[in-house]
């Protein structure tokens, strides 16, 4: 019945209690603990029946309700136990909490309505000015124009030309394609071998990088396989090509 519909809708024990109070048309101030406790426990039982996980918060509330109910039956020595550190609280405290929670639940409803209203007025979809908040790329190019783009390219190319001239003077060029061919040959002849042996003392960082790229490419082409036993361990390079004459001689 009604339970089924609402089972997983409750935001917490307070939400559930407020719902029960509404259902019974009871005022928070006039809360009848024994009656509400019974209903609350029925709810928890239903939840368990439906294999819904009953969160700890719900159980703590059940304990609270039971304790308040029990105290009501005892003579008035409650002050002594009231502030006991069992995590449970008194009837006054329960009422205070229900009232506070209901205030925020109601105002949350107002806020939701305000946000919906706000959605019915539209801002401009993007701005041409900087923003004050975190950067949003609503207008990802700022005020750049196509002219800015072309002049940026001209600028990059001009720098490139200058740099290239400088490089040609001092540079020697490494050709990756050549390096791949070289390594294929060396590996075929000396397989298996260490990656380190593909380099020599004169090798620059660039040489290392190119050699590594060449090896990766050869692996991709299936010409060689590499193995590394452990991280930072030596890399073993093995050629997949049949060995030349020397092999037969052995």
């Amino acid at each position, binding site marked *: 019945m009604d339970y089924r519909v609402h089972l997983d809708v409750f935001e917490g024990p307070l939400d559930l209690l407020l719902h029960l109070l509404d259902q019974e048309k009871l005022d928070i101030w006039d809360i009848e603990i024994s009656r509400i406790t019974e209903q609350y426990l029925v709810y928890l039982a239903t939840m368990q029946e439906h294999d819904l996980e009953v969160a700890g*918060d719900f159980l703590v509330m059940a304990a609270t309700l039971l304790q308040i109910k029990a105290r009501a039956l005892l003579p008035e020595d409650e002050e002594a136990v009231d502030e006991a550190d069992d995590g449970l609280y008194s009837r006054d405290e329960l009422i205070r909490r229900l009232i*506070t*929670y209901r205030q925020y*639940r109601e105002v*949350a409803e107002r806020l939701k309505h305000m946000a919906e*209203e*706000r959605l019915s007025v539209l801002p*401009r979809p993007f701005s041409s000015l900087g923003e*004050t*908040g975190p950067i949003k790329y609503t207008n990802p190019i700022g005020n750049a124009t196509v002219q800015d783009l072309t002049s940026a390219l001209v600028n990059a190319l001009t720098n490139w030309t200058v740099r290239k001239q400088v490089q040609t003077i001092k540079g020697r060029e490494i050709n990756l394609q050549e390096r791949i061919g070289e390594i294929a040959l060396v590996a075929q002849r000396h397989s298996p071998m260490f990656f380190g042996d593909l380099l020599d003392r004169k090798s620059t960082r660039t040489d290392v990088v190119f050699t590594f790229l060449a090896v990766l490419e050869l692996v991709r082409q299936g010409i060689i396989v590499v193995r590394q036993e452990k991280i930072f361990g030596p890399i073993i390079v093995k050629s997949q090509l049949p060995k030349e004459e020397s092999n037969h001689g052995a």
Partner: protein
Amino acid sequence: MGPKKAKAILEAIIFASAAPVPVANLASVIGWEPAQTELLLAELAREYQCAGRGIQLSFVAGGYELTTKQEMKPYLQAFQRPEISIGLSQAALETLAIIAYKQPVTKIEIEDIRGVRADSAVNTLLERGLIEERGRQDTPGRPILLGTSPKFLECFGLATLADLPPLPKIRESSRQSINDIS
């Protein structure tokens, strides 16, 4: 500069801005006093109110912004407000309400009011930029303090936090019944 030109500049700046523009910023560009600028903005807002206009000038989140008018909604069904999708769960909405009214507030205080864990709701709100951290409380554990962000005001169309609707009143009449034990 004359009011006509000043007004044109205000309109252009507000139009071109993605977020509401504070009056101080506007005043500094046109070189007017903030108070005078406000009057000019009020005049501008009045001009937009006329029936032949589809947009409006409003004061939101501490600044001025242009938006389409409320009554234009039916004709703008094809358009969506960018970025703001309120789709908040009830839990997130309640948590946001508590933060908005009680800020700066700790997660524990929120949990105390709602009676359930607040982690997930607080994370959602942080992710959406509706709330932000406000340092730490000087109490044991030094819990993080939470408050609403400028984006919160913007999303909910509030000029300042003072414009939050008042919390519903607590009825005091039957207060004595607290002392009754049922």
